[in-house]
């Protein structure tokens, strides 16, 4: 495991920027990810968020869980909204209308908001090079509206709009690789993260905030409700995803890949151990799981190779 600057919860920022009383499901690892991301960023942060689980559970008028400045405008546009915040603030500070201050500008959205409806906007924001961070909370479906498939739903997962059936394996396409797309925009920083590896996540968010220019972080957000697992297993399944190489943890700094956590021989597990136990995969046959294993191993080899080339 790459050395992280913080390796004990005791050294993690104590201040909470996301208040209790929010309406996330029991065991929601996505809201945990939001909580951790905000700890890494601190109070000088402005968040633009997409419509979705996190927006709904955190902001039922007249209540809000947000303790940093926050704006929800629409579904597909947090990247454009935060571009406007960043640029507007930049102009005002330069013109002396506001005192200089380092502020983190963060766009946040789920996988549906980011990889589907907001793709164009994200691409525009990354291309324009705003000094911002975009965090995608990937729970692998449109969870807020009732578990419909997105382009980030993994192959073979059953969702309400890609249900497993006599004529279908469930999701018939492979998960869209958002980090690869982000990297193709020549941005200085992109990374994957998971709240089951909290210190790795905190480090990456911190690094993103210190880098000038656009950063993209893709966070695997375990959803007990949508994945059909026990709430108490939310952290465990994040670990299984990473240790089975289904969701490798790496970062890309100026195009150079670096794996930040390589499962040891002892920790490495077959994909079946990750898939079994999740209701959304329970229809898969052994043969189908073998196919998935082959693809996961192949994709992980690619990341390994890219990391070594660095």
């Amino acid at each position, binding site marked *: 495991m790459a050395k992280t600057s913080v390796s004990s919860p005791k050294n993690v920022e104590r201040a909470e920027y996301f208040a209790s009383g929010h309406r996330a499901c029991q065991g929601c690892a996505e809201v945990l990810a939001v909580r951790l991301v905000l700890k890494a960023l601190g*109070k*000088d*942060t*402005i968040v*633009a968020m997409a419509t979705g689980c996190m*927006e*709904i559970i955190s*902001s*039922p*008028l*007249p*209540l*809000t869980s*947000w*303790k*940093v*400045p*926050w*704006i*929800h*405008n*629409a579904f*597909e*546009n947090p990247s*454009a*909204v*935060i*571009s*406007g*915040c*960043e*640029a*507007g*603030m*930049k*102009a*005002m500070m*330069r*013109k002396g*209308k*506001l005192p200089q*201050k380092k*502020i983190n500008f963060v766009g946040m959205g789920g996988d549906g908001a980011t990889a589907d409806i907001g793709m*164009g*906007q994200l*691409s*525009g924001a990354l*291309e*324009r090079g705003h000094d911002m961070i975009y965090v995608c909370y990937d729970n692998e479906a449109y969870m807020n509206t009732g578990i419909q498939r997105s382009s980030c739903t993994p192959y073979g997962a059953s969702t309400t709009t890609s249900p497993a059936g006599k004529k279908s394996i469930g999701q018939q396409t492979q998960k869209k690789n958002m980090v690869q797309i982000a990297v193709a925009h020549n941005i200085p920083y992109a990374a994957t993260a998971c709240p089951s590896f909290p210190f790795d996540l905190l480090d990456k968010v911190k690094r993103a905030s210190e880098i000038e220019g656009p950063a993209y972080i893709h966070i695997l957000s375990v959803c007990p409700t949508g994945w059909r697992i026990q709430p108490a297993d939310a952290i465990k399944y994040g670990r299984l995803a990473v240790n089975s190489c289904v969701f490798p943890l790496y970062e890309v700094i100026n195009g150079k890949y670096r794996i930040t956590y390589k499962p040891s021989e002892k920790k490495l597990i077959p994909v079946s151990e990750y898939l079994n136990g999740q209701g959304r995969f329970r229809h898969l046959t052994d043969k189908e799981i073998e196919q998935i294993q082959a693809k996961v191993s192949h994709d992980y080899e690619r990341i390994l190779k890219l990391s070594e080339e660095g």
Partner: protein
Amino acid sequence: MGKVRKGVEVSIAIADAVTQANVDLIAAYPITPQTHIVEHLAEIVANGELDAEFIPVESEHSAMSVCCGSSAVGARTFTSTSSQGLALMSEIFFIAAAMRLPMVMALANRSLSSPLSIWNDHSDVMMVRDAGWIHIFVENGQETYDNIFCAFRMSEDPDVLLPVAVNLDGFILTHMIEPVEYEDDELIRQYLPEFKMKNTLHPDNPVSMGCFGMPEIYTETQMNREAGVRGSYPYILKAWGEWGKLTGRNYKPIETYRAEDAEYCIVTMGSYGGAAIEVVDTLRDEGEKVGAIKIRLWRPFPLDEFRKAALGKKYLIVIDRAISFGGPGGPVASELRSALYKKDGAPTMVNYVAGLAGRDVSPEDFRKIILEGRKKAQSGDTEGFTLYGLRG
């Protein structure tokens, strides 16, 4: 820039006004016929004549989204679009008004597809009639230039906080070279105070914008909005009044020409107002007791002023620049009929739709519309609308 009178393309005058207004952010996506506005602004920023962030977005939907983000942090924000661009950004156009985010848009009115048409009519602005923006219509280059400043003044007024659209006819105004008197920078600075909004996104005073509304509270949010739009009216008049004091050019929600003693009037909105005046003079010379009523403020609709101008007239010939398919008439005529409903002295109204997609309406055409319209009104032929110049 000092006070100077010049012949200038109206698009350029808009860009120059935006510069003098010391805007902080411009969101730009090109669409005919607004391109000269954003091109000239790009040049101005590139040469350091305006210190602003020029954001070349990847779609109009993003243009409005960027404007929302910019306004939310308290930056003076400007954008421009037309037709399909407005349609694409319409989701956020509504949200900008609902979230009370001040900004100014130069809306170069252009017909909506399909078929694709780059030429002028009002179908684009009619599409967003109910969005809650303030809408001003201008008729010539001077009015366009002036109202950019008035729009910022209205929009950013702490008692208004609504986005404002300055509607100008695409090509007919945007690409026309008009005589415009530029005011000097000092007067503009005097007229436009710095934009200071009570609640902005800033870590020193965090707020949450755009929380979602359950049925238990949504109705109240909409009343708050409606009150905001209606309540902006006196401040709109104030902004125009102050401009009038400083420059001698006074704008009013409804403007009339030779209407006081008129028997009947033509009603227009936008650049047709200029032609209407010419034709009124011609017809008056021929003995017709005709006048013109021009709508300058479309939203919030000036009910009292309009009623004052229209009640007591025998007939109104209302010219629309858009069709409401399957509806009772053109959008403007429908509103005016509704404004005069059951009012004593309400004139008989006849509705013409003319000049769709920029088809030329000459002074002779206006004359025909007025005289034919008056005949229709006299004979009670007032149903629906007449599509002027239709072949077939």
